């Protein structure tokens, strides 16, 4: 954007995950002379693309290249290390920017609504994923999986965790899975993982390619009740899932050190243990009254996400009779996108689709004169915010540091500590003063 031109619209996007970045990308394509700032709590952008996508799924992270372009060519500004709701309020932000879009996702783990859900060694999948991916918030998390793990839920998040708990250490070339985390998992000596879902196998939430990815681990024996693998074969998606599961059940070689049991059609009833979990009771989902006991030294609950306890931005607080959630519209100049808007479903392509929809919605409201303009945007931010904030150049320093520090076949060694991330982000004066 020509710096001498007044911006046609100033926009603050809160959250730099997939939906926030795609939204910025889409708005830049639609509105000339728009001035967009993406505000992120961490000094690192990209949200779940960096901290949610499994470390051995690097190909899934390629959309980052699109966002690098938009930050590098200056069409979108990155302001890191600033938390809306703590460093400045949403009200203040709305006074400074014509449009504010909330793209903060959903990071709380849904808890099991059964007795014992809060026993020690019952862990949320989101928390475990952040630990596996070296998120700064997980720095103090020390899971004890023990020998027997029960995973409740069998969506893709659950399967990612399953895979990362069983996959052998030497197959992490070209990933960014940290050595010490791998070692920690190995040392725990997991011998059995039972993964339990409430639906029938044919309706399970995992994608079949996630199951196929589990094949070929010679040290793992998979067990699925053959009765569970009978199902409708006229529905392609279901048939492919069942096929993938069937193909896991090859005859044992005798080299197995870990057993993985897939159970379908069971709902948790009670988590038992004196201080930490010892076993979990399940009841059949079909109402037959059958019960099943699964011994477990730890439980990972992968049953979805919800608003985090203590989240400062809650969608319900902004909804009123003028809101139109289906269009991402919350109130005057306030919009929402992605999981924050629509609930914690969908991956990167869904985030892109949602972002395009909300961008169209914003564009239309601007054209219709329903958005008041003329606010200064980034230029209105107080000095204190600019002093605390980090920028895209700061992220590129972190990025360079992490890729440079990679050793032993890894593509990256993430910096885990927040203070260090901030320090590295600040460690050089960029060639131009604006990001």
């Amino acid at each position, binding site marked *: 954007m020509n710096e001498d031109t007044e911006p046609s619209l100033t926009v603050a996007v809160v959250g730099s995950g997939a939906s926030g970045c795609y939204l910025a990308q889409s708005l830049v394509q639609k509105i000339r002379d728009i001035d967009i700032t993406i505000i992120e709590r961490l000094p690192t952008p990209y949200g779940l693309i960096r901290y949610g996508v499994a470390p051995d799924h690097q190909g*899934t992270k390629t959309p980052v290249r699109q966002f690098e372009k938009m930050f590098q060519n200056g069409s979108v500004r990155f302001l890191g290390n600033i938390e809306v709701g703590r460093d400045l309020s949403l009200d203040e932000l709305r006074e400074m920017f014509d449009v504010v879009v909330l793209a903060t996702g959903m990071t709380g783990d849904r808890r099991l609504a059964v007795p014992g859900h809060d026993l020690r060694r019952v862990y949320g999948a989101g928390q475990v994923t952040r630990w596996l991916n070296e998120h700064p918030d997980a720095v103090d998390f020390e899971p004890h999986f023990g020998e027997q793990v029960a995973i409740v839920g069998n969506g893709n998040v659950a399967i990612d965790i399953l895979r990362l708990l069983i996959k052998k250490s030497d197959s992490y070339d070209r990933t960014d899975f940290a050595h010490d985390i791998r070692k920690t998992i190995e040392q725990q000596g997991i011998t059995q993982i039972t993964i339990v879902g409430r639906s029938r196998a044919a309706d399970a939430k995992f994608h079949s390619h996630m199951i196929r990815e589990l094949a070929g681990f010679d040290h793992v024996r998979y067990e699925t009740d053959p009765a569970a693998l009978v199902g409708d074969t006229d529905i392609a998606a279901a048939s492919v899932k069942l096929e993938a599961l069937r193909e896991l059940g090859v005859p044992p070689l005798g080299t197995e050190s870990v057993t993985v049991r897939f159970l379908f059609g069971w709902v948790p009833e009670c988590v038992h243990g004196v201080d930490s979990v010892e076993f979990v009771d399940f009841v059949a989902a079909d109402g037959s009254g059958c019960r099943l006991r699964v011994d477990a030294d730890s439980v990972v609950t992968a049953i979805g996400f919800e608003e985090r306890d203590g989240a400062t931005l809650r969608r319900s607080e902004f909804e009123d009779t003028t809101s139109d959630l289906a269009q991402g519209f919350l109130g005057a100049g306030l919009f929402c996108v992605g999981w924050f808007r629509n609930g914690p479903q969908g991956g990167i392509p869904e985030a892109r689709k949602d972002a395009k929809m909300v961008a169209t919605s914003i564009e239309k409201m601007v054209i219709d004169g329903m958005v008041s303009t003329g606010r200064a945007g980034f230029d209105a931010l107080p000095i204190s915010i600019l002093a605390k904030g980090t920028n895209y150049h700061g992220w590129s320093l972190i990025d360079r540091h992490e890729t440079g520090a990679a050793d032993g076949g890894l593509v990256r060694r993430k910096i885990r500590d927040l203070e260090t991330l901030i320090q590295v982000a600040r460690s050089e004066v960029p060639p131009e003063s604006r990001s």
Partner: protein
Amino acid sequence: MNVTIIYASESGNAEMCANSISDVLRDEFHPQVVDISDMTVDQLRLYDTSLFVCASYGEGDVPNSALAFFDEISGGGVDLAGVRFAMFGLGDTFYDTYNRGADRLAEQLRACGALQFGEHARHDASSGEPPEEMAEEWAVAVAAQISAEIQGVA
């Protein structure tokens, strides 16, 4: 020479590649860049040359945005004689249906009588190679072939 670049994207990578290809071809051919969800068979016939940039999705399917167009050309009785196209596919060797989406789209276009020219490129997300760089190199080669075609006609 009317050139169009048609992208079928899920995550935006194919769209990004389409824009990179457009940058390479712009001065000489001024191509239109179109989302496949906005493309119909009638519109396709308006172009001398179409460059498709197609990602794979799900079980080796074409992206959702391509479904309407794909259904139109699969319906039977569609004649694409005279349509020349080249294909740049995006996939991930991580999946055993690697690049199957772009392969299926090319197969179906050919089945309707369209002529495929140039290299059928297949980018691999797991290779670590930036997709838009591969797309740029491919675009340079395709541009040379389009020019040669024009000169051949003249």
